[in-house]
Structure formats: structure tokens, C-alpha cells
């Protein structure tokens, strides 16, 4: 065997061993405990990405369910910004930053209503989000400061990590009382699933 072939094989073997070892040792105690409600009420947790068109598509149905079941069901939105959506993380931070001024839901709706204008871009849409803050009458300086706040970003990423642990592979993913909802998240399908848990 030539020196070249021998050295090539050695490198391949070393890499194979390292990869195998890594996979073996990182098979940790993955707790796949899904988020559950504490107060006995029915809880719907949605992991979503503000830049995701499928989340945008599910949004009107979810809003309708909120108005219909608002008294009996808690709807909880958690962030799951997908890395390939370049502005999803900043959008999530912007929603939380608006939340610090009591306008979380308004910013959330505005993000989805205008998704076509800012989604799918490879450049930062910070200026657009600042415009949203102005539109909502937020304190601009405080909002801008919050956008850059690492603590807020951490909170968004912590939600994503939690979702990932619970088995979220894409968005939107719903958990109804801790059970992962499968199938297309249409108004009818979600309503049926919620109705089943309520009865």
C-alpha cells in the first residue's frame, strides 16, 4: 500500500472513531417532557417562528380559537426561531421588547400581518421593526435598547431550546395539555383536538 493510501485511511479511521465516540457519549438523558399546564386548565402551547409562512397560515385559525375558547383554554405562544430565517430571532426579540411595554400581542399581530413585507430577507430588518414600534406608539429608545438586550435574546433562545427538547422539529408545533398535536394545524383540526380534551 502506498504512503498516500495508508495516510488517507488513517485519517478516515480517526475521524470515524471520533464521530462514533461523540455520538455515543452525547446520547444523554434526553428528557422529552412536554410543557404542561399547572392549574388544571387546558393549555395550548404553540411553538412558532414569526418568519415562517406556515405559522402565518395557521395564525388566523388560532386567533379565532382564542376568541372562542379564551375563558376555558390558555393559549401560550413560545418562540422557536429557525436559524434559516434570518430575521425570525430578531422578530421574536422585538415581540418581547414590545411586551416589556405592555404591547406584546399587538406586536405579535403586526409581525404576522406584515410578514410578506419583511420575511425571507437575508439582510437585517431591524429598521422595519423599529418602524413597527413607532406605529404602536412605543417608547423608541427603550424599545431599541431592549432589541439589543442579551437577556431578552437569551429568553427567546431558551424557549427554543426547551421546544427542541420537547421534540419540536419544525414550526408551528402545538402541544395540547402537553401532548404534541400532529397533522395540519387548521382551525378545524385544532378545534377538534381541543374539544376532545375539554370534554
Amino acid at each position, binding site marked *: 500500500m*502506498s*504512503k*498516500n*493510501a495508508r*495516510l*488517507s485511511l488513517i*485519517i*478516515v479511521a480517526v*475521524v470515524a472513531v471520533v464521530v462514533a465516540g461523540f*455520538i455515543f457519549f*452525547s*446520547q444523554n438523558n434526553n428528557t422529552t417532557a412536554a410543557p404542561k399546564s399547572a392549574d388544571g386548565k387546558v393549555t395550548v402551547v404553540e411553538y412558532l*417562528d414569526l418568519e*415562517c*409562512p*406556515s*405559522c402565518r*397560515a395557521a395564525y388566523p385559525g388560532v386567533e379565532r380559537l382564542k376568541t372562542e375558547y379564551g375563558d376555558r383554554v390558555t393559549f401560550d405562544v413560545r418562540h422557536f426561531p*429557525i*436559524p*434559516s*430565517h*434570518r430575521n425570525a430571532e430578531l422578530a421574536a426579540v422585538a415581540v418581547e421588547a414590545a411586551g416589556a411595554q405592555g404591547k406584546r400581542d399587538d406586536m405579535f399581530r403586526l409581525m404576522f400581518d406584515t410578514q410578506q413585507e419583511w420575511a*425571507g430577507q*437575508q439582510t437585517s430588518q431591524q429598521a422595519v421593526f423599529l418602524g413597527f414600534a413607532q406605529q404602536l406608539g412605543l417608547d423608541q429608545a427603550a424599545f431599541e435598547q431592549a432589541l439589543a438586550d442579551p437577556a431578552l435574546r437569551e429568553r427567546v433562545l431558551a424557549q427554543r431550546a426547551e421546544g*427542541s427538547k420537547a421534540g*419540536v*422539529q*419544525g*414550526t*408551528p408545533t402545538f402541544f395540547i395539555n402537553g401532548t404534541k398535536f400532529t397533522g395540519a394545524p387548521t382551525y378545524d383540526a385544532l378545534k377538534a383536538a381541543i374539544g376532545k380534551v375539554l370534554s
Partner: protein
Amino acid sequence: MNRLVAWVLAVGGFVGLIASSVLTIEKIALLKDPFYVPTCSINPVLSCGSIMKTAQAEVFGFPNPLLGIAGFAVVTTLGVLLVSGVSLPRWVWIGLQVGVTFGVLFVHWLIVQSLYEIGALCPYCMVVWAVMIPIFWYTTLRNIRPTFQYHSVVLILWYLVIVAGVLQAFWFYWSSLV
């Protein structure tokens, strides 16, 4: 070295040609159905549909894989000629060197775009990355240093750097798998 280059060009060119053709066909299918909405998955491969809609997918004003079809067809033809024992004139080798150098630079630019700007992977594009590197490497060795001993060692290390980049760029997804 001459036999090796001949086979790398013939096989690599052919594989690249197939991948470019598939990408072109997918591009046409996408044009026919502009309302196709890709699912929002953390899997960088499943967001493939979106890669083709980016500006980087048609740098020169037309879909990149068309360049691949033309380029890889030439590489395959030259490779087959070499395998069957034809010796090519010097100027053809110079021309090939210019072509594969452009190809390898372009592919690496696309790799950087894919990993760090677009944030998604597309399997057939990766096939093109994988064949473009040896085509460039062995053509260059044949033209510049045909006696170089550790040719496949360099190739493997080259591949490893790119694999490491893919792992790092999509770490969030890979770590959700284990």
C-alpha cells in the same frame, strides 16, 4: 496520475452533470408552481425549496445549474477521451484548468453563501460541491505537480474542512438529532 485524472474527470463530470440536470428540472418545477410553500423545518435540507429562490441561485441572471450542465458536459467528454487513451493538446489542458478553477472558486463562494447567508442545504448542490473539488484538485496536480504523493490526503482534509463547516453552521439541528 494521468489514469487517475482521466477517471476523476469522467466519473466526477458525469455525477456533476446528473446533479446539475436534476437541479435544473427542479427549478423548472418551482417556476411552474410559484405558490409552493416550503415547510418550516429546522432540518436545513427540508428548506431546500427556498434556496432556489435566493439571489445567489442565479448569480449571472440565469439559474446556476445551467452553468453546471454546460461545464460538466465538457469535463465528462474530456474525461472519457482520456480514459480511452487519447492525449489532449496542451492548450486544452490550459483551458480546462481555467474552467475548473472558476468552477471551484464559484462552488466555494456558494458553500459560504449556503452555510452563512442562506442557512440551508440542498442535497444536489452538495453533490456538485463534492465532485468539483476533486475535479479541480486532480486537474491542477496533473498540470503543475504530477509527482505529488499525498494527493488523496489533501482531498480528504479538504472535505473534512467543509464537513466541519456544515456541522458548525447547522449545529442547532444536528444537536437535536442525538
